């Protein structure tokens, strides 16, 4: 069992994960089109006329700031940013994971000390409690929560919880580590095909879609 989960199943889940991401990126570009620049007939208005018609850059910048999550919900924005960084870096720089990589491919990626990883994992689990609290008790979140959100919550947090329990050998180690590996593989497979696909579309939407909130104003594509 252990060998199966560690070897072939892990490989399969990584392949599905990466192919899934490629699929979603292709999907994005197939479903969006490059916006043609507006056709202008007749003489262009002068710079002065334009500036009297449209808000200045300063006003626009202020409006963007006022409308953004950073100004409206600073606490949640900071917390969720920390959570997202931890969710990604903790497994990547985990010593135990990287030892497995070394055993398989002979390279040893940089790793945190076990103590640091332990603290990061506890922080992630604490975020889990916080998100659960929001889903259950904050009325605006409650209004848009359905069963699927709790299901995805489990998909995301079980790998971290079981990894933590396995490391501390709180329950039988062998069972726990197998559950940990299977649940982690399920999570990887789920990312491109569930609401976790926001991981991919966050970057696609915010960099490639023409919008006042597109990063660096690089976006030039539209959905319609």
């Amino acid at each position: 069992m252990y060998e199966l989960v560690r070897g072939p199943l892990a490989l399969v889940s990584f392949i599905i994960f990466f192919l899934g991401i490629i699929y979603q990126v292709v999907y994005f570009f197939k479903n969006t089109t490059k916006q043609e620049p507006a056709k202008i007939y007749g003489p262009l208005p002068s710079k002065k006329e334009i500036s009297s018609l449209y808000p200045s850059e300063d006003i626009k910048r202020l409006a963007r700031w006022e409308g953004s999550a950073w100004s409206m919900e600073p606490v949640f924005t900071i917390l969720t940013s920390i959570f997202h960084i931890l969710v990604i870096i903790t497994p990547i720089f985990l010593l135990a994971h990287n030892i497995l990589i070394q055993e398989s491919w002979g390279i040893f990626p940089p790793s945190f000390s076990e103590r640091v990883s332990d603290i990061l994992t506890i922080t992630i689990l604490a975020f889990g409690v916080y998100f659960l609290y929001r889903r259950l008790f904050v009325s605006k979140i409650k209004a848009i929560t359905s069963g699927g959100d709790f299901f995805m919550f489990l998909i995301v947090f079980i790998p971290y919880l079981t990894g933590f329990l396995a490391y501390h050998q709180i329950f039988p180690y062998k069972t726990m580590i197998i559950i940990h590996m299977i649940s982690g593989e399920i999570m990887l497979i789920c990312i491109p095909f569930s609401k976790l696909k926001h991981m991919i579309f966050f970057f696609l939407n915010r960099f490639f879609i023409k919008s006042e909130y597109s990063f660096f104003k690089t976006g030039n594509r539209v959905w319609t």
Partner: protein
Amino acid sequence: MDWNREVLKKYKSKIKLAMSVCARCGMCAQSCFLYMAKDKDPEYMPSYKMINSIGLIYKKKGRLNKEELEKVREIAWEKCVLCTRCYCSLGIDIPWLISLARDYCRLNGVFKTYD
């Protein structure tokens, strides 16, 4: 021609995508002036309106009963003015999707009445 199907078919994959990308995070709430003006009533939150209008139409494959249709109409006209000021952290175009719900309503003979 089945117009309901036509609207849905044309934008089906985009509606589906938006519904599944939405992380249900509630970050769009405060960006809607109606949500703020209505004492933060969750029913005025942009994502709530999106999920319960075009999202419902998609989920039901375009077959809504009378009450559902009336509820969608109420959301699409009375609860959203399509001012396009909402901010979604993930870049979902909420007003465009709610405007599709308006299209759907119009095609079913339901729209805003001024009385």
